[in-house]
């Protein structure tokens, strides 16, 4: 008898792209934890998934650019392949009814373009720094922006790496306002993706280096957006826009 019976591999008839949020307690979940939770939600809902070929078939899901464990996000992206055409809104509602609290599908579009990953050019982040006065953070951000290069180091899979955390940063500004808690600076950060990608904790390390900024309480970091970078406005655009722009089928 064969080790694994041959399976007929059926290609997906439709692909759907989703933006999802990872908030609150779920920020402590790793990317793999989120992926398992998402895949089980797909099975509970009965999404007609397409599967990969091979010895151990996997549902066709690709994840882009996962946020680090411990960080919240309003803008994670993934794409699934299905064997029957699904209604994006029905899919979104069904998944949101069953996902663990803290994971929420924010947007579903039918895939009509090919280059989502390359459109995730930059990321926008919000860094809440409890215990740091807004003025202190503002001064630190200005000191950071005033220099051309700040070398930081981080442990990566390939070992300890040293790299510049300043270059890819497009925007770093204190933005707390009325209604925000007292004594808690809030930084808005826009950073261009690259290799190695500069993450908010690298920018915090850089702020410690240039301005001795040392948050007494672990900062709360949220990825607000990912997408094409508008260099002039220093903002991040919706990466699903090109998929949405196409005329809707049957409309």
């Amino acid at each position, binding site marked *: 008898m064969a080790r694994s019976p041959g399976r007929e591999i059926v290609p997906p008839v439709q692909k759907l792209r989703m933006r999802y949020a990872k908030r609150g307690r779920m920020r402590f979940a790793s990317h793999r934890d989120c992926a398992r939770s998402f895949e089980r939600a797909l099975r509970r809902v*009965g999404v007609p998934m397409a599967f990969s070929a091979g010895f151990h078939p996997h549902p066709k899901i690709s994840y882009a650019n996962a946020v680090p464990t411990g960080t919240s996000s309003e803008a994670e992206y993934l794409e699934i392949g299905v064997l029957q*055409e699904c209604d994006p809104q029905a899919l979104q509602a069904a998944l949101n009814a*069953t996902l663990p609290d803290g994971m929420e599908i924010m947007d579903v579009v039918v895939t009509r373009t090919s280059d989502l990953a390359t459109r995730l050019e930059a990321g926008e982040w919000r860094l809440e720094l409890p215990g740091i006065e807004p003025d202190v953070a503002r001064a630190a951000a200005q000191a950071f922006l005033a220099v051309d290069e700040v070398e930081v180091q981080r442990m990566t899979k390939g070992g300890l790496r040293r790299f510049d955390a300043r270059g890819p940063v497009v925007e770093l500004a204190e933005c707390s306002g009325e209604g925000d808690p007292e004594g808690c600076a809030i930084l808005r950060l826009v950073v261009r993706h690259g290799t190695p990608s500069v993450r908010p904790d690298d920018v915090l390390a850089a702020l410690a280096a240039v301005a001795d900024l040392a948050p007494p309480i672990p900062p709360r970091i949220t990825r607000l957006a990912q997408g094409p970078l508008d260099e002039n406005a220093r903002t991040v655009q919706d990466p699903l826009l090109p998929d949405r722009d196409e005329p809707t089928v049957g409309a």
Partner: protein
Amino acid sequence: MTATIPDPCAPVFDRLEQLLPRVQKPVQYVGGEVNAQVSEWGSADVRWALMYPDAYEVGLPNQGLQILYEVLNEQDGTLAERTYAVWPDLAALMRENGVPQFTLESHRPVAAFDVLGVSFSTELGYTNMLEALDLAGIPLHSVDRTEAHPVVVAGGHAAFNPEPISDFVDIAVAGDGETVVLAISEAVRAWKNGGRPGGRDGLLLSLAALDHVYVPRFYDVEYLPDGRIRRVVPSRPDVPWRVAKSTLTDLDAWPYPRTPLVPIAETVHERASVEIFRGCTRGCRFCQAGMITRPVRERSITGIGEMVQAAVAATGFEEVGLLSLSSADHSEIGEVAKGLADRYEGSNTSLSLPSTRVDAFNVDLANELSRNGRRSGLTFAPEGGSERIRAVINKMVTEEDLVRTVTTAYAAGWRQVKLYFMCGLPTETDEDVLQIARLAREVIRVGREVSGSRDIRCTVSIGGFVPKPHTPFQWAAQLGHEETDARLALLRDEIRADRQFGKAIGVRYHDGKPGIVEGLLSRGDRRVGRVIEQAWRDGARFDGWSEHFSFDRWMTAAERGLEGTGVDVAWFTTRERQHDEVLPWDHIDSGLDKEWLWQDWQDALDEVEVDDCRWTPCFDCGVCDQMGTAIEVGPTGRVLIPLEPISPAPLLATQA
């Protein structure tokens, strides 16, 4: 301004959250799993914290805890939350910041609950219970607790000898917990609503009056001059001399867990489990689980089918495990396997049967269940290397059976066979263990022949035998750790030296030291409590994890803890007991007649085998008579009705 006294029941998540970025795998502490049950705190007047005393990744999949969690949460006025052992990195931060042991649902302090139920699958969880009590701010010793503290309950298989932890627990429950937890809830409710009559002792007395509930505090242990136990006597007239185990009947009426928990963190068993029967009467003499869970009670084929369907729908797990002590022994397992394999064909839902029975039928079952999937490894448990030692332990498998079974497996396309054995069995010699090497070589030889391939493997996995209470081997001398290690080294060398087959045989084993500590805790009496406490004070935690276990720490703790008693670790472990000795657990009634166990021990020494009472007449082990129970097995003759596939219709795009 008046100072506000912090509410001792208030959730601690906000403070815990500050610590989580600084620990490993923080997601294990946040709860929020699919199917977790979060009840309004004020909606219940009896509140349970259920603990599995090991890390979340081990504790979450535990079926016993998940069953009781649902059974309790289904009751009006009762709620149950879960708590697990926290790793030392978080424990240190919690102490530093005054964050107590917490539950995962509401993140309230464990001390705020009425009952703390701890399920012990193994004795190696004892120090984790002490750590949790200490982190919770609950006094370690039962006598130091007041009526403001939770009742600490021990259950699970290790509770069949609760004596080593009798200083730390308020009550112990032997046997199936489903109905007992409900009775405990009622007693706690009546006591609370009745104005707490008699204080804490009043509550413990009302619990002692329940069936299956043992309150160690109400018993005195008297010793003989040589250190053995003279007798264990109730210290009050109103508690029973012996406490009997609980036995659940009609498993179909208890389809729990209905909605298994789906962890966010990765755990050791990433699957839903359905218990297909409880109990085992194979009569393997080393097996405490088989002895204390008699008689066999099957879930029906239709009951199994419904539970599998419900579990898949409620969890989205890709795998469902059919659990029991010997799953291939279910009277309708063939129909169950085929029915489920048919039902889930092409659905990417796989089924597993963690069974280790050595026969060709088992391979047929495995073939059926792996119809769509991989055929990587099959596991069998001959347990003993020689025919002689298998007669001693009553594992009725001949070498011919084993060879025939693995031949079938390799011929069916399985590439790896794993064989489980034990080392240190009563009467064992070096020769018995070296026979394991011979068996493994024979397995590879026939495997290469029938598969026509050299690309097959056999892994031999060897565990050290620890004699357990309520088994025929409860009187046996445990093998010392040096002797265990020497015997395993001989076996390893024998396999390594084999040029023809050695490279195809993997050997996995652990050194003998943890087994000695397990042996001390398994067959210990109340005097061992001081050793456990000392070991915990010296830093013992997570004793089931080799990276946290320290043999030297335990031995030092034993020296101090047993000082002045005249007994030592060897006395508890490597000493053979005599017929007339009062054993520390004799007053916990597992239903097994002590004379029958002794006779079975003598039969073991005479290498006489005993059959399974499911298909031969009763051997008078005593359980059914004593407990008023009976074997509950099929066949029912019913069939699994194929299900309609889940329709994704509501999700589909409407065709314009």
